[in-house]
């Protein structure tokens, strides 16, 4: 019997053939169905467009204004989650007739006062927002803000509501670089109103915040003008003023607003006499020395001179406080000079001996960290604390200096060793060459 011959049994053949012939016409149909289902599942938005008459009409409209809102919605964060027109504007999206305000719940363009309520219908719902991991306290925060109080209590149409910052249709997630509330765009969004002189005139508000902010250290980091600094970590407008509870930080809040990030400065500041005075007289605040909006890169030069926000602006030059400031300035300057010298020695070592200086650079990073700490410690106005930190940095610098000296010394020793070695090698060479030539002469004599 031949192997596998049972497969060739004649009675099996018609059954298999029948099955194959019945499956063959169904196969393209099945494939077609799978294709249709995949298309439908993949294109939720196109499906929504087909069934949503608002979108189909607006997208097909020849008027730019009418078409733009639909185009913007398609790119918004609401489109993928199918938050369509009727959620805000009401009406029947399946109707083919033109909507009429008041009929079928259609409200047309909602008024400014209506907007926070409309947004919060979804954005205040914890069950709905949970799946998108979005906070739900925006409306409450907005109600407590100056914007919210002005709009809701006084019906002031000048203030910002949700759509003024987030846009009405082009609503994008904050991490989208094109979003108006993205970390790098939010200052410009705020400035659309706050840099408008006509709008701000009745309220007596300044309009130069954005230009000042862009020049500030914070602004330069956010706009990526300073290398090796993370723009996400520097504050933009909401960093100090709050996100939805937008109002100027109160006198007592200024320190708190700064302390949110500058924890070490706070720690040292609390040890100072200024901290006691702040509680008593509400002065001096952070902004009195560092300014606000146009906060410059802090420098030890603040300790000298009579210019505004310098020590001399409050303390007379002969006073003990002013002298203390001068000593702090001298300490920091001296330490920075020493660090620069050590760094130049490391660079010189690299240039001279082409050595691997990564371990020295790591130690230098420690020095830099300690110096930064010392600068922060000046907030304590305590010379002893600052000296202690600088001493720590000096110890590390001494270690670096010793290692640099050792490297040079070793290089010298290696040279000397080579000189001795070459001397020995030359002597041995001469001796053996001489012996060889003697042997050669001797052999020639014999022959």
């Amino acid at each position, binding site marked *: 019997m031949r192997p596998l011959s049972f497969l060739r049994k004649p009675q099996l053949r018609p059954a298999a053939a029948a099955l194959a012939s019945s499956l063959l016409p169904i196969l393209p149909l099945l494939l077609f169905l799978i294709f249709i289902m995949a298309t439908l599942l993949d294109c939720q938005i196109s499906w929504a467009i087909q069934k949503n008459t608002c979108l189909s009409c607006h997208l097909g409209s020849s008027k730019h204004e009418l078409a733009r809102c639909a185009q913007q919605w398609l790119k918004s964060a609401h489109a993928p989650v199918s938050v369509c027109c009727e959620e805000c504007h009401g009406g029947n999206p399946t109707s083919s007739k033109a909507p009429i305000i008041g009929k079928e719940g259609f409200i047309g363009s909602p008024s400014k006062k209506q907007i926070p309520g409309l947004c919060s219908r979804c954005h205040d719902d914890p069950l709905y927002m949970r799946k998108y991991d979005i906070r739900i306290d925006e409306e409450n925060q907005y109600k407590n803000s100056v914007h919210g109080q002005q709009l809701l209590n006084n019906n002031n149409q000048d203030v910002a509501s949700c759509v003024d910052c987030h846009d009405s249709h082009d609503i994008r997630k904050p991490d989208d670089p094109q979003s108006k509330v993205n970390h790098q765009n939010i200052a410009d969004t705020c400035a659309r109103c706050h840099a408008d002189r006509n709008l701000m005139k009745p309220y007596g508000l300044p309009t130069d915040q954005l230009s000042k902010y862009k020049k500030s250290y914070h602004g330069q980091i956010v706009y990526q003008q300073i290398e090796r600094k993370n723009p996400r970590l520097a504050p933009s407008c909401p960093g100090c003023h709050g996100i939805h509870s937008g109002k100027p930080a109160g006198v007592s809040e200024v320190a708190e607003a700064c302390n949110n990030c500058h924890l070490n400065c706070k720690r040292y500041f609390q040890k100072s006499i200024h901290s006691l005075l702040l509680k008593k007289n509400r002065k001096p605040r952070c902004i009195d020395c560092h300014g606000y909006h146009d906060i410059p890169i802090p420098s030890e030069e603040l300790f000298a001179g009579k210019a505004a926000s310098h020590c001399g602006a409050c303390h007379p030059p002969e006073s003990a406080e002013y002298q203390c400031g001068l000593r702090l300035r001298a300490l920091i300057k001296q330490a920075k000079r020493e660090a620069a010298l050590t760094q130049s020695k490391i660079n010189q070592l690299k240039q001279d001996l082409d050595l*691997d200086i990564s371990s020295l650079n790591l130690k230098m990073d420690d020095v830099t960290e300690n110096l930064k700490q010392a600068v922060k410690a000046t907030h304590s106005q305590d010379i002893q604390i600052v000296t202690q930190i600088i001493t720590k940095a000096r110890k590390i610098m001494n270690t670096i200096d010793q290692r640099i000296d050792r490297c040079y010394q070793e290089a010298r020793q*290696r040279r000397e060793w080579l000189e001795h*070695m*070459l001397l020995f090698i*030359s002597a041995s*060479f001469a001796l*053996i060459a001489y012996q060889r*030539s003697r*042997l050669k002469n001797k*052999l020639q004599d014999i022959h």
Partner: protein
Amino acid sequence: MKVRRIHPPHHIHDSPDSPAVQENQLQGYDNLYKNKKEETSSQSMAAALRQCLKPEPVRWSSCSGWIIFHLFWIEGISGILLLLYYRPTVSEAYESIQQITNNLHYGWLIRGVHMWGIHLLILSLLLHFWQQLAQIYRLAWKSTWILGIILMILIGVIGTSGHLLPWTQGSYWATTFLTQLSAAVPLVGEPIKILIRGGNEVSQMTLSRFFALHILIAPLLFIFLALGHIFSARRSLIPADLLLHVLIVIILTGILFSLATLYPARMAQKADPLNSILNIKPEWYFMASYEVFQLLRKISPERQNVSIIFGIMLHIGIFLLLGLLPFFVPSQQGENTWIRPLTIALTAAGLLIFLALTLLGACS
């Protein structure tokens, strides 16, 4: 000296072909051989020493091979010393080299000598190769030449495998690039790449493989083949004019010590598989090969794979041609007087192309 002649005992009554006669004859020859051996050994030591020390005229052609021999054992000794402290693991290879270079007494010197040694060895190997190529028509034994070509490839393998061992950025990415080349060959390329790397990536497996290759497999093979190379050229392992060789070793030691002190082996950055470097360049001795691939890539930028395959085929072809060269070259006999100038001219042309490619690769 008078040599005693011993005749085998001869029995008249036995016929010359009888077994007894044959046995006696054999015994007699044995005695003769034994006595001769004793005599030569008694006279040999002084004579042999004299023979070894006898100064001969210095000829570069006979020295170049011996320089390779001396550099090889210097490399062996310095390599064994490094082996005492080197740890062949991805996590510790770099640190152990750092320890050898920075913390051990004269560790920098041993590492420097080992590093410069391979450069000098390859340099003298290339000199030996070009010199022998220029006079291939005088080649006495084909096996010497073929073994020489295999030895040249083996030194390349030793150099390449040793280059990865410090596990620096340069060595890691050079190995990645080199092993990736083979993947371009259809069908066999990918399995060969995986075989060399011991996996899809250059990893611990690759390091272990290259370590074994560098310290044991390739050097052992090299020693066996080098012995064959030396014996096939009818040379003795103990060279004539021993003093000259002592002088060569002294000079080599001086050069190696100077290079290791004045241009010591540095610690580059540790290998980081997540951070590729842009400008990967091989060691100078592979620069010509590298430039060939670069030129082929420039010729057909759209078909990278084809140019790589062509480059690999070209290399295999060149080495095959070199290996089989003695079978084509007629010896300089009779009317073949044209062979000498022709060989020298072709060798000079080949050397010029090699140097030009090396320079181009270095400057690109």
